């Protein structure tokens, strides 16, 4: 269903900024709420400055059924009527807008900072904090439950494992979690602001570290975007290699996750096998480009390295062997009753909640939602070589683990297929500069889920605004919801089953 007052386009299709309808905020609000109610998802919702003290709100909506994206915009100054009460998906985006540009979404039920930085415009602040006032992460009012038997558990930002920082606040009744609130922002580096005026020499390096474990995903999204903005085409061999790298990244992380899930429940065999196999998958990426995380592999206009026939033979041979190994490790999980007892019915996200929050990636597919950018919004190699959507319907830890296993199998099949057919061509083409006054959305299905990059160029063709939405941004609230009325001892397991990025969220 087309969104009213909007313009539709495909993934990675550049449009003129002038073509984007600018409507009154009430119409904007109604259109977005109506579109989301009809089953579309908010891929991104952000504000960009437009002249003195005025801002342009952009809403990018994704229609999974038609494979089309739509965008609409509206001019606001320092406040507008919040969408969140009628459209839950907007809640974190609106908090982000308030924090970045000091635009207050009036009527937002839970308006608090999310990354704890000063507003981008000096002297303006949505919470009336003074200029130069120190902002300490996670210092805010948390949702509180009161009562004689209620106790509060605060976890983090420093954790027992070697992981990123994040703060989790539980309100518990005995072992039961009544509410979990997650407060992040410790990793905020200001990546989006650093991209303004680009692309320049540093841009690609920022993209590689948006989320270190999703290097290929984010760099691919960025490269698609720049190639589209500049109207360049890349050879199919390049697209194929990018696809191979993206699926290798998925393989390594999914396998690592299965191992970590097994480790959390104290199931040693899969834990140890998968830990090793994950390293082997990472080494395959290193075989192609010399870096286990694929740094330097994907760049605008091409790829940094080619696969020689010798390397592609090694790749195919090692992958065939790893396929057997990972099969043994995963099947151990599905055939051990004590593992299934632990996974099943733990951390259930109902499909309704999944829709309302606009979850993406593995957690969404684990609720039975057929959401996969590779299938719904294909770009690059996925326009030619389709991967079926892997989903499961139970919404619990088991489903999230099982979807990973399904995807592992399909990714291996995809890579083996691509290695066979991958044509050897020039690996690098010179691309033109981005065209002026263009707007482009690039969606890539990273291993966590939908990565959304939005780029807007100014009249010189430089990036005038850049918005990154990591799948974690959508999904962190899903984790909080999955913990409702669960045992607090199940939190580590639920957390691992989502395995979200802290730095991807914090940017």
């Amino acid at each position, binding site marked *: 269903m087309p969104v009213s007052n909007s313009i539709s386009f495909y993934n990675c299709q550049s449009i003129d900024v002038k073509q984007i309808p600018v409507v009154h905020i009430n119409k904007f609000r109604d259109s977005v709420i109506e579109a989301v109610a009809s089953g579309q998802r908010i891929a991104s919702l952000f504000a960009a400055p437009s002249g003195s003290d005025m801002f342009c709100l952009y809403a990018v909506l994704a229609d999974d059924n038609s494979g089309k994206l739509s965008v609409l915009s509206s001019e606001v100054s320092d406040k507008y009527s919040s969408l969140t009460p009628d459209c839950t998906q907007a809640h974190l985006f609106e908090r982000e807008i308030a924090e970045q540009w000091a635009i207050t979404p009036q009527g937002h039920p839970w308006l608090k900072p999310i990354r704890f930085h000063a507003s981008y415009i000096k002297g303006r602040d949505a919470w009336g904090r003074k200029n130069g006032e120190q902002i300490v992460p996670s210092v805010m009012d948390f949702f509180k439950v009161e009562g004689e038997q209620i*106790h*509060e*558990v*605060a*976890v983090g930002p420093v954790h*027992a*494992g070697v992981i990123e920082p994040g703060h989790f606040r539980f309100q518990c009744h*005995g*072992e039961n979690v009544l509410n979990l609130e997650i407060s992040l922002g410790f990793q905020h580096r200001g990546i989006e602001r650093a991209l303004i005026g680009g692309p320049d020499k540093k841009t690609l390096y920022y993209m590689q570290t948006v989320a270190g474990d999703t290097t290929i995903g984010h760099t691919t999204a960025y490269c698609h975007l720049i190639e589209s903005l500049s109207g360049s085409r890349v050879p199919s061999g390049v697209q194929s290699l990018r696809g191979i790298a993206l699926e290798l990244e998925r393989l390594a992380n999914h396998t690592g996750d299965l191992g970590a899930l*097994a480790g*959390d*429940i*104290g*199931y*040693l*065999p899969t*834990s*140890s*096998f998968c830990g*090793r196999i994950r390293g082997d998958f990472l080494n395959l990426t290193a075989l192609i480009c010399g870096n286990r995380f694929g740094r330097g592999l994907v760049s605008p206009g091409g790829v940094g390295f080619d696969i020689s026939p010798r390397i592609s033979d090694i790749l195919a041979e090692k992958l065939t062997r790893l396929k057997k190994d990972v099969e043994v490790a995963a099947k151990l999980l599905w055939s*051990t009753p*004590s*593992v299934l*007892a*632990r996974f099943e019915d*733990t951390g259930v996200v109902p499909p309704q909640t999944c829709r309302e929050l606009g979850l993406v990636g593995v957690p969404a597919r684990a609720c039975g939602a057929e959401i996969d950018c590779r299938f719904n919004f294909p770009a690059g190699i996925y326009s030619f070589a389709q991967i079926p959507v892997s989903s499961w319907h139970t919404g619990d830890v088991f489903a999230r683990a099982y979807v990973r296993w399904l995807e592992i199998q399909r990714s291996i099949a995809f890579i083996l297929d691509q290695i066979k057919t991958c044509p050897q061509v020039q690996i690098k083409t010179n691309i033109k500069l981005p065209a002026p006054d263009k707007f482009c959305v690039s969606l890539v299905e990273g291993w966590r889920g939908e990565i959304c990059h939005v780029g807007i160029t100014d009249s010189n063709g430089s990036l005038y605004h850049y918005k990154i939405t990591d799948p974690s941004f959508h999904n962190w609230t899903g984790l909080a919801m999955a913990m409702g009325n669960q*045992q*607090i*001892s*199940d*939190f*580590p*397991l639920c957390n691992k089953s989502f395995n979200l990025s802290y730095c991807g969220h914090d940017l």
Partner: protein
Amino acid sequence: MIILKLLNMVIALAAAPLLLGIINRTKAVFAGRTGQPLLQLYYDIWKLLRKGAVYSRSTSWIFRVGPVIGLSVALIAAALIPFGGLPAVISFKGDLILFAYLFGLSRFFTVLMAMDTGSSFEGMGASREVTFSTLSEPALLIGLAAIAKYTGYISLSQMFSSLNLSVWLNAGPAFVLVGFAILIVFLTENSRIPIDDPNTHLELTMIHEVMILDHSGPDLAMILYGAAIKMWLLGAILIGIVVPVHSGNALFDISAAMLFMILLAIVIGVIESSMARLKLLHVPQLLIGATTLSILALVLILR
């Protein structure tokens, strides 16, 4: 005779940390790793003893006295348990009750010192520990009662010395049940999989480990050593019931008992390698199941 009695205690105190080494080595083999040295716990204890301890300002004397009580209790308990035909150092009528409640005392202080830190994690661990031990206690006591009824003695030393392998012919079914019940108690009390995961680093899921998170240096050494002795003693009870080898030759009996202890450690390692932890909600069901097994055994013997 007194030398034999002391030998029993010396073996328990010297060999206790070895059990954990064997369990860990078994798990390592299953995981395809080389694993830590068999004597790792000895090294750890020695290392910790030479370190200083860190005390939080919010803790009181309870936090410091807890590890001492824990170790003392383990030593007293070691004096009560016969091993491989060797009688215990101390024995009197009804010492099995003392044995069970010595660990209750130790647990009481562990819980107090966990609460003393004021940490929400340790508080949760304490509440879990208390809940689960309440359920494992009847399994152990009723199981021992069944054996006491069978042998007609209520002193551990007399009870165990009167058992021999012929019990499997006379009261096999009852002994199978008691064996399983005490195995579950063994796993629970020593915080092993499937009840607890001694290797996890996730505070939210821990039971026993989380209560001692704040201890360091010699205090932690005492706690670790006390826990190792506890594991040895419960293991000694288990093999004393399941494989009571009493040939009359002291050397042979001790060797057999040692061998069975090693086998037990390997079995525990295999259990830990082949199954996942239970959901905390399901642990009480397992423990009630253990109690039911003990009751059934008692019924079979009373019949």
